[in-house]
Protein backbone atom coordinates (compact mmCIF):
# COMPACT_ATOMS: atom_id res chain seq x y z
CA UNK A 1 0.00 0.00 0.00
CA UNK A 2 1.19 3.51 -0.81
CA UNK A 3 1.39 6.12 1.92
CA UNK A 4 -1.83 7.75 2.93
CA UNK A 5 -3.06 10.02 5.71
CA UNK A 6 -5.95 8.87 7.85
CA UNK A 7 -8.67 11.20 9.16
CA UNK A 8 -11.71 10.33 11.22
CA UNK A 9 -14.81 12.42 10.63
CA UNK A 10 -17.52 12.74 13.25
CA UNK A 11 -20.11 14.47 11.06
CA UNK A 12 -21.01 14.69 7.39
CA UNK A 13 -19.97 18.33 7.17
CA UNK A 14 -16.62 17.55 8.78
CA UNK A 15 -16.05 14.72 6.30
CA UNK A 16 -16.76 17.02 3.35
CA UNK A 17 -14.39 19.64 4.75
CA UNK A 18 -11.64 17.04 5.26
CA UNK A 19 -12.05 15.82 1.70
CA UNK A 20 -11.89 19.35 0.29
CA UNK A 21 -8.65 19.98 2.16
CA UNK A 22 -7.06 16.79 0.91
CA UNK A 23 -5.02 16.67 -2.27
CA UNK A 24 -6.54 13.44 -3.59
CA UNK A 25 -8.70 12.14 -0.78
CA UNK A 26 -11.24 9.39 -0.66
CA UNK A 27 -13.97 8.42 1.78
CA UNK A 28 -13.63 5.06 3.47
CA UNK A 29 -16.64 3.38 5.09
CA UNK A 30 -16.32 -0.35 5.75
CA UNK A 31 -13.13 -0.49 3.73
CA UNK A 32 -14.03 -3.92 2.38
CA UNK A 33 -13.50 -2.77 -1.18
CA UNK A 34 -11.23 0.23 -0.82
CA UNK A 35 -8.60 -1.29 1.52
CA UNK A 36 -8.04 -4.40 -0.67
CA UNK A 37 -7.82 -2.10 -3.70
CA UNK A 38 -5.22 0.05 -1.94
CA UNK A 39 -3.28 -3.05 -0.90
CA UNK A 40 -3.07 -4.01 -4.55
CA UNK A 41 -1.97 -0.46 -5.35
CA UNK A 42 -4.89 -0.05 -7.70
CA UNK A 43 -5.91 2.98 -5.64
CA UNK A 44 -3.59 5.37 -3.83
CA UNK A 45 -5.57 8.18 -2.22
CA UNK A 46 -3.43 10.80 -0.47
CA UNK A 47 -5.94 10.90 2.37
CA UNK A 48 -8.62 8.61 3.73
CA UNK A 49 -11.62 10.15 5.42
CA UNK A 50 -13.28 7.58 7.66
CA UNK A 51 -17.09 7.77 7.68
CA UNK A 52 -17.58 4.85 10.07
CA UNK A 53 -18.01 6.98 13.17
CA UNK A 54 -20.66 9.31 11.79
CA UNK A 55 -23.85 8.56 13.70
CA UNK A 56 -26.14 10.35 11.20
CA UNK A 57 -25.25 7.78 8.52
CA UNK A 58 -26.51 4.82 10.52
CA UNK A 59 -29.78 3.12 11.17
CA UNK A 60 -32.86 1.59 9.58
CA UNK A 61 -36.24 3.25 9.77
CA UNK A 62 -39.49 1.65 8.67
CA UNK A 63 -42.29 4.23 8.92
CA UNK A 64 -45.63 3.37 7.40
CA UNK A 65 -44.99 2.49 3.79
CA UNK A 66 -41.48 3.89 3.60
CA UNK A 67 -38.11 2.34 4.39
CA UNK A 68 -35.02 4.44 4.92
CA UNK A 69 -31.61 2.92 5.48
CA UNK A 70 -28.56 4.97 6.44
CA UNK A 71 -25.58 4.61 4.13
CA UNK A 72 -23.33 3.61 7.02
CA UNK A 73 -25.50 0.65 7.98
CA UNK A 74 -23.52 -2.59 7.68
CA UNK A 75 -24.62 -5.61 5.69
CA UNK A 76 -24.92 -7.55 8.98
CA UNK A 77 -27.25 -4.90 10.43
CA UNK A 78 -29.47 -4.95 7.34
CA UNK A 79 -29.51 -8.76 7.36
CA UNK A 80 -30.89 -9.04 10.88
CA UNK A 81 -33.16 -6.00 11.21
CA UNK A 82 -36.55 -7.16 12.48
CA UNK A 83 -38.61 -4.28 11.08
CA UNK A 84 -37.00 -4.59 7.67
CA UNK A 85 -37.56 -8.34 7.70
CA UNK A 86 -41.27 -7.59 7.81
CA UNK A 87 -41.28 -4.77 5.27
CA UNK A 88 -38.85 -6.19 2.71
CA UNK A 89 -37.35 -9.56 3.65
CA UNK A 90 -35.71 -9.83 0.22
CA UNK A 91 -33.30 -7.06 1.21
CA UNK A 92 -32.34 -8.87 4.44
CA UNK A 93 -31.77 -12.03 2.41
CA UNK A 94 -29.60 -10.13 -0.05
CA UNK A 95 -27.47 -8.57 2.69
CA UNK A 96 -27.10 -11.91 4.47
CA UNK A 97 -25.50 -13.38 1.34
CA UNK A 98 -22.90 -10.72 0.65
CA UNK A 99 -19.40 -12.15 1.01
CA UNK A 100 -18.90 -13.69 4.44
CA UNK A 101 -19.70 -12.77 8.07
CA UNK A 102 -16.50 -10.77 8.54
CA UNK A 103 -17.09 -8.70 5.41
CA UNK A 104 -20.71 -8.17 6.47
CA UNK A 105 -19.63 -6.81 9.85
CA UNK A 106 -17.72 -3.97 8.17
CA UNK A 107 -19.11 -3.44 4.67
CA UNK A 108 -21.85 -0.83 4.24
CA UNK A 109 -24.75 -0.18 1.91
CA UNK A 110 -23.40 3.26 1.00
CA UNK A 111 -19.97 1.86 0.15
CA UNK A 112 -21.48 -0.81 -2.00
CA UNK A 113 -23.64 1.44 -4.13
CA UNK A 114 -21.02 4.22 -4.34
CA UNK A 115 -18.56 1.64 -5.60
CA UNK A 116 -21.06 0.23 -8.15
CA UNK A 117 -19.13 -2.98 -8.79
CA UNK A 118 -20.84 -4.69 -11.74
CA UNK A 119 -21.14 -7.87 -9.66
CA UNK A 120 -22.28 -6.30 -6.38
CA UNK A 121 -25.65 -7.24 -4.93
CA UNK A 122 -27.11 -3.97 -3.59
CA UNK A 123 -27.26 -2.11 -6.91
CA UNK A 124 -29.83 -4.65 -8.16
CA UNK A 125 -32.03 -4.06 -5.12
CA UNK A 126 -31.76 -0.27 -5.27
CA UNK A 127 -32.71 -0.26 -8.95
CA UNK A 128 -35.55 -2.79 -8.69
CA UNK A 129 -36.99 -1.10 -5.60
CA UNK A 130 -36.94 2.24 -7.46
CA UNK A 131 -35.17 3.61 -4.43
CA UNK A 132 -34.08 7.20 -3.94
CA UNK A 133 -30.43 7.75 -3.12
CA UNK A 134 -30.02 10.58 -0.63
CA UNK A 135 -26.76 12.48 -0.54
CA UNK A 136 -25.47 15.49 1.36
CA UNK A 137 -26.40 17.55 -1.71
CA UNK A 138 -29.53 16.11 -3.32
CA UNK A 139 -31.80 13.17 -3.97
CA UNK A 140 -31.03 10.94 -6.93
CA UNK A 141 -33.45 8.43 -8.45
CA UNK A 142 -31.97 4.93 -8.73
CA UNK A 143 -32.54 5.08 -12.49
CA UNK A 144 -30.10 8.00 -12.69
CA UNK A 145 -27.63 6.87 -10.05
CA UNK A 146 -25.81 3.90 -11.63
CA UNK A 147 -23.95 5.26 -14.64
CA UNK A 148 -21.41 2.68 -15.77
CA UNK A 149 -18.90 0.14 -14.39
CA UNK A 150 -17.71 1.52 -11.05
CA UNK A 151 -19.28 4.84 -12.00
CA UNK A 152 -22.22 6.62 -10.39
CA UNK A 153 -23.82 10.06 -10.56
CA UNK A 154 -21.91 11.02 -7.39
CA UNK A 155 -19.51 13.94 -7.42
CA UNK A 156 -16.14 13.54 -5.71
CA UNK A 157 -17.16 15.34 -2.54
CA UNK A 158 -20.67 13.92 -2.43
CA UNK A 159 -21.60 11.51 0.35
CA UNK A 160 -24.40 8.99 0.11
CA UNK A 161 -26.33 9.50 3.34
CA UNK A 162 -29.18 7.00 2.90
CA UNK A 163 -31.49 5.21 0.53
CA UNK A 164 -35.27 5.19 0.81
CA UNK A 165 -38.01 3.31 -0.97
CA UNK A 166 -41.71 2.54 -0.79
CA UNK A 167 -42.40 -0.93 0.56
CA UNK A 168 -43.08 -3.13 -2.49
CA UNK A 169 -46.05 -5.49 -2.62
CA UNK A 170 -43.59 -8.32 -3.12
CA UNK A 171 -39.87 -8.63 -3.73
CA UNK A 172 -37.32 -11.39 -4.15
CA UNK A 173 -33.62 -11.76 -4.90
CA UNK A 174 -31.73 -14.72 -6.26
CA UNK A 175 -28.07 -14.86 -7.20
CA UNK A 176 -25.80 -17.45 -8.65
CA UNK A 177 -22.74 -16.71 -6.55
CA UNK A 178 -19.25 -16.97 -7.91
CA UNK A 179 -18.05 -19.98 -5.89
CA UNK A 180 -14.82 -18.25 -4.89
CA UNK A 181 -15.84 -14.66 -4.14
CA UNK A 182 -19.60 -14.95 -3.55
CA UNK A 183 -20.11 -11.91 -5.75
CA UNK A 184 -22.97 -12.37 -8.19
CA UNK A 185 -22.09 -14.25 -11.35
CA UNK A 186 -25.63 -13.19 -12.13
CA UNK A 187 -28.19 -11.91 -9.66
CA UNK A 188 -31.76 -10.75 -10.24
CA UNK A 189 -33.88 -8.64 -7.90
CA UNK A 190 -37.58 -8.52 -8.77
CA UNK A 191 -40.08 -6.19 -7.12
CA UNK A 192 -43.81 -5.95 -7.66
CA UNK A 193 -44.97 -2.40 -7.08
CA UNK A 194 -48.48 -0.99 -7.13
CA UNK A 195 -47.68 0.51 -10.53
CA UNK A 196 -45.76 -2.32 -12.15
CA UNK A 197 -42.89 -4.79 -11.94
CA UNK A 198 -39.20 -3.96 -11.92
CA UNK A 199 -36.46 -6.53 -12.42
CA UNK A 200 -32.83 -5.51 -12.08
CA UNK A 201 -29.86 -7.65 -13.05
CA UNK A 202 -26.38 -7.52 -11.55
CA UNK A 203 -23.25 -9.50 -12.36
CA UNK A 204 -24.12 -9.80 -16.02
CA UNK A 205 -24.18 -6.43 -17.77
CA UNK A 206 -21.11 -5.02 -19.53
CA UNK A 207 -22.08 -1.61 -18.18
CA UNK A 208 -23.13 -2.80 -14.75
CA UNK A 209 -26.57 -3.19 -13.25
CA UNK A 210 -29.55 -2.88 -15.62
CA UNK A 211 -33.29 -3.50 -15.85
CA UNK A 212 -34.38 -6.56 -17.83
CA UNK A 213 -37.34 -5.45 -19.91
CA UNK A 214 -38.25 -8.90 -21.17
CA UNK A 215 -38.54 -10.16 -17.59
CA UNK A 216 -40.57 -7.17 -16.44
CA UNK A 217 -43.01 -7.49 -19.37
CA UNK A 218 -43.51 -11.19 -18.79
CA UNK A 219 -44.28 -10.63 -15.11
CA UNK A 220 -46.77 -7.79 -15.49
CA UNK A 221 -49.65 -10.12 -16.33
CA UNK A 222 -48.90 -12.78 -13.75
CA UNK A 223 -46.26 -12.44 -11.06
CA UNK A 224 -45.46 -16.17 -11.17
CA UNK A 225 -42.28 -18.05 -12.06
CA UNK A 226 -44.21 -19.90 -14.77
CA UNK A 227 -44.92 -16.58 -16.49
CA UNK A 228 -41.21 -16.62 -17.42
CA UNK A 229 -41.40 -19.98 -19.23
CA UNK A 230 -40.21 -19.28 -22.75
CA UNK A 231 -38.90 -15.79 -21.91
CA UNK A 232 -35.45 -15.13 -23.32
CA UNK A 233 -33.03 -12.31 -22.68
CA UNK A 234 -30.63 -11.18 -25.42
CA UNK A 235 -26.92 -11.84 -24.85
CA UNK A 236 -25.97 -8.49 -26.41
CA UNK A 237 -24.31 -6.24 -23.87
CA UNK A 238 -23.68 -9.05 -21.39
CA UNK A 239 -20.24 -9.90 -20.01
CA UNK A 240 -18.15 -12.84 -21.16
CA UNK A 241 -15.29 -13.86 -18.92
CA UNK A 242 -13.50 -16.94 -17.55
CA UNK A 243 -16.53 -17.69 -15.38
CA UNK A 244 -19.31 -17.59 -17.94
CA UNK A 245 -20.10 -16.55 -21.51
CA UNK A 246 -22.65 -13.88 -22.35
CA UNK A 247 -25.05 -16.59 -23.58
CA UNK A 248 -24.69 -18.51 -20.33
CA UNK A 249 -25.42 -15.35 -18.36
CA UNK A 250 -28.44 -14.57 -20.57
CA UNK A 251 -29.88 -17.94 -19.61
CA UNK A 252 -28.95 -17.46 -15.95
CA UNK A 253 -30.87 -14.20 -15.86
CA UNK A 254 -34.10 -16.03 -16.63
CA UNK A 255 -33.31 -18.84 -14.19
CA UNK A 256 -32.45 -16.42 -11.39
CA UNK A 257 -35.50 -14.28 -12.18
CA UNK A 258 -37.72 -17.36 -11.76
CA UNK A 259 -36.11 -18.16 -8.43
CA UNK A 260 -36.44 -14.54 -7.32
CA UNK A 261 -40.16 -14.55 -8.16
CA UNK A 262 -40.58 -17.84 -6.30
CA UNK A 263 -38.85 -16.34 -3.27
CA UNK A 264 -41.04 -13.23 -3.54
CA UNK A 265 -44.12 -15.45 -3.55
CA UNK A 266 -42.99 -17.09 -0.34
CA UNK A 267 -41.03 -20.09 -1.44
Amino acid at each position, binding site marked *: *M*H*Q*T*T*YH*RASSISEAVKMLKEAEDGKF*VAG*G*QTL*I*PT*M*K*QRLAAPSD*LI*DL*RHIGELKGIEVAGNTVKIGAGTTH*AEVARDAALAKACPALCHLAAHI*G*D*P*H*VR*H*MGTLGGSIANNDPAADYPAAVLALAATVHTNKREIAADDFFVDLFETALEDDEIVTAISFAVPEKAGYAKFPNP*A*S*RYALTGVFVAKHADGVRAAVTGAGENGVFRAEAIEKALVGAFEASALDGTTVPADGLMSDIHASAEYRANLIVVMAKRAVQAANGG
Partner: protein
Amino acid sequence: MAEISMTVNGRKVTGTVEDRTLLVHFLRENLGLTGTHVGCDTSQCGACVVHLDGKAVKSCTMLAAQASGSEVTTIEGLAQGAELHPVQAAFREHHGLQCGFCTPGMIMAAVDMINRHPEGLDEKTVRAELEGNLCRCTGYHNIVKAVLAAAEAMGGKAVKAA
Protein backbone atom coordinates in the same frame (compact mmCIF):
# COMPACT_ATOMS: atom_id res chain seq x y z
CA MET B 1 2.30 8.91 11.38
CA ALA B 2 -0.77 8.05 13.42
CA GLU B 3 -0.97 7.94 17.18
CA ILE B 4 -3.27 5.08 18.00
CA SER B 5 -4.60 3.50 21.13
CA MET B 6 -6.88 0.53 21.63
CA THR B 7 -7.63 -2.22 24.10
CA VAL B 8 -6.20 -5.54 22.99
CA ASN B 9 -7.17 -8.63 24.96
CA GLY B 10 -8.15 -6.41 27.85
CA ARG B 11 -4.90 -4.48 27.90
CA LYS B 12 -4.64 -0.80 26.92
CA VAL B 13 -2.02 -0.35 24.22
CA THR B 14 -0.76 2.66 22.32
CA GLY B 15 1.53 3.05 19.36
CA THR B 16 2.82 5.34 16.67
CA VAL B 17 2.44 3.75 13.28
CA GLU B 18 2.35 4.75 9.64
CA ASP B 19 -1.22 5.59 8.69
CA ARG B 20 -1.15 2.78 6.11
CA THR B 21 -0.27 0.13 8.71
CA LEU B 22 -2.79 -2.68 8.68
CA LEU B 23 -4.31 -3.78 11.97
CA VAL B 24 -2.85 -7.27 11.51
CA HIS B 25 0.67 -5.84 11.21
CA PHE B 26 0.19 -3.67 14.26
CA LEU B 27 -0.89 -6.74 16.24
CA ARG B 28 1.91 -8.97 14.97
CA GLU B 29 4.82 -6.58 14.69
CA ASN B 30 4.20 -3.90 17.28
CA LEU B 31 2.49 -6.03 19.90
CA GLY B 32 4.17 -9.37 19.11
CA LEU B 33 0.79 -11.10 18.93
CA THR B 34 1.75 -13.46 16.14
CA GLY B 35 -1.19 -15.80 16.63
CA THR B 36 -3.14 -13.75 14.10
CA HIS B 37 -1.97 -14.91 10.67
CA VAL B 38 -1.83 -13.49 7.17
CA GLY B 39 -2.76 -16.09 4.58
CA CYS B 40 -3.60 -14.04 1.51
CA ASP B 41 -3.42 -10.67 -0.20
CA THR B 42 -7.01 -10.58 -1.28
CA SER B 43 -9.14 -10.41 1.90
CA GLN B 44 -10.46 -13.90 1.27
CA CYS B 45 -8.81 -16.45 3.56
CA GLY B 46 -9.82 -15.36 7.06
CA ALA B 47 -6.53 -16.38 8.72
CA CYS B 48 -6.40 -12.85 10.13
CA VAL B 49 -9.83 -12.78 11.81
CA VAL B 50 -9.98 -10.97 15.15
CA HIS B 51 -12.88 -9.45 17.04
CA LEU B 52 -13.34 -5.71 16.83
CA ASP B 53 -15.77 -4.46 19.48
CA GLY B 54 -17.10 -8.00 19.73
CA LYS B 55 -17.49 -8.73 16.02
CA ALA B 56 -15.35 -10.88 13.74
CA VAL B 57 -13.45 -8.82 11.16
CA LYS B 58 -10.50 -9.35 8.85
CA SER B 59 -7.58 -7.54 10.43
CA CYS B 60 -5.79 -7.47 7.05
CA THR B 61 -8.60 -5.38 5.62
CA MET B 62 -8.50 -2.57 8.11
CA LEU B 63 -5.94 0.04 9.02
CA ALA B 64 -4.71 0.04 12.59
CA ALA B 65 -5.84 3.67 12.65
CA GLN B 66 -9.41 2.61 11.79
CA ALA B 67 -9.36 0.38 14.86
CA SER B 68 -8.06 3.07 17.19
CA GLY B 69 -10.37 3.50 20.16
CA SER B 70 -11.79 0.01 19.77
CA GLU B 71 -11.59 -3.21 21.73
CA VAL B 72 -9.76 -5.97 19.94
CA THR B 73 -9.67 -9.64 20.89
CA THR B 74 -7.15 -11.96 19.26
CA ILE B 75 -6.64 -15.70 19.56
CA GLU B 76 -4.21 -15.00 22.44
CA GLY B 77 -7.07 -13.45 24.40
CA LEU B 78 -9.36 -16.48 24.47
CA ALA B 79 -7.83 -18.91 26.97
CA GLN B 80 -8.17 -18.26 30.70
CA GLY B 81 -4.59 -18.94 31.77
CA ALA B 82 -3.92 -22.62 31.09
CA GLU B 83 -7.56 -23.36 30.48
CA LEU B 84 -8.47 -23.38 26.81
CA HIS B 85 -11.59 -21.59 25.56
CA PRO B 86 -14.31 -24.18 24.79
CA VAL B 87 -13.85 -23.58 21.05
CA GLN B 88 -10.10 -24.16 21.32
CA ALA B 89 -10.71 -27.28 23.36
CA ALA B 90 -13.20 -28.57 20.79
CA PHE B 91 -10.76 -28.00 17.90
CA ARG B 92 -8.17 -30.07 19.80
CA GLU B 93 -10.63 -32.79 20.75
CA HIS B 94 -12.10 -33.16 17.26
CA HIS B 95 -8.88 -32.75 15.27
CA GLY B 96 -10.14 -29.51 13.76
CA LEU B 97 -6.66 -28.68 12.55
CA GLN B 98 -3.70 -30.15 10.75
CA CYS B 99 -1.00 -27.58 9.95
CA GLY B 100 -2.76 -25.04 12.13
CA PHE B 101 -2.25 -22.05 9.88
CA CYS B 102 -5.94 -21.27 9.43
CA THR B 103 -6.81 -22.21 13.02
CA PRO B 104 -6.61 -18.85 14.82
CA GLY B 105 -8.93 -17.29 12.24
CA MET B 106 -11.20 -20.34 12.27
CA ILE B 107 -11.49 -20.21 16.04
CA MET B 108 -12.15 -16.47 16.16
CA ALA B 109 -14.78 -16.92 13.43
CA ALA B 110 -16.31 -19.83 15.33
CA VAL B 111 -16.54 -17.92 18.62
CA ASP B 112 -18.24 -15.04 16.79
CA MET B 113 -20.60 -17.45 15.03
CA ILE B 114 -21.59 -19.16 18.27
CA ASN B 115 -22.15 -15.79 19.94
CA ARG B 116 -24.46 -14.71 17.12
CA HIS B 117 -26.50 -17.91 17.28
CA PRO B 118 -27.60 -18.30 20.90
CA GLU B 119 -30.39 -20.55 19.63
CA GLY B 120 -27.75 -23.11 18.63
CA LEU B 121 -26.13 -24.14 15.34
CA ASP B 122 -26.66 -26.82 12.73
CA GLU B 123 -24.20 -28.16 10.18
CA LYS B 124 -25.63 -26.21 7.25
CA THR B 125 -25.38 -22.91 9.12
CA VAL B 126 -21.82 -23.63 10.27
CA ARG B 127 -20.71 -24.44 6.73
CA ALA B 128 -22.37 -21.31 5.33
CA GLU B 129 -20.91 -19.14 8.08
CA LEU B 130 -17.39 -20.46 7.46
CA GLU B 131 -17.54 -18.92 4.00
CA GLY B 132 -14.85 -16.40 4.90
CA ASN B 133 -12.31 -18.89 6.27
CA LEU B 134 -10.22 -21.11 4.03
CA CYS B 135 -8.39 -24.26 5.12
CA ARG B 136 -5.97 -26.07 2.84
CA CYS B 137 -5.63 -29.17 5.02
CA THR B 138 -8.64 -30.53 6.81
CA GLY B 139 -11.39 -30.59 4.20
CA TYR B 140 -13.43 -28.69 6.82
CA HIS B 141 -15.15 -31.79 8.12
CA ASN B 142 -13.56 -31.81 11.54
CA ILE B 143 -13.70 -28.06 11.79
CA VAL B 144 -17.47 -28.22 11.39
CA LYS B 145 -17.62 -31.01 13.98
CA ALA B 146 -15.53 -28.96 16.40
CA VAL B 147 -17.69 -25.86 15.99
CA LEU B 148 -20.88 -27.86 16.54
CA ALA B 149 -19.41 -29.54 19.61
CA ALA B 150 -18.23 -26.21 21.00
CA ALA B 151 -21.63 -24.63 20.41
CA GLU B 152 -23.19 -27.42 22.37
CA ALA B 153 -20.58 -27.29 25.13
CA MET B 154 -21.27 -23.58 25.43
CA GLY B 155 -24.90 -24.44 26.06
CA GLY B 156 -26.14 -23.01 22.81
CA LYS B 157 -26.08 -19.74 24.71
CA ALA B 158 -24.31 -16.52 23.85
CA VAL B 159 -20.96 -16.46 25.58
CA LYS B 160 -18.70 -13.45 25.49
CA ALA B 161 -15.21 -13.97 24.12
CA ALA B 162 -12.32 -13.37 26.51
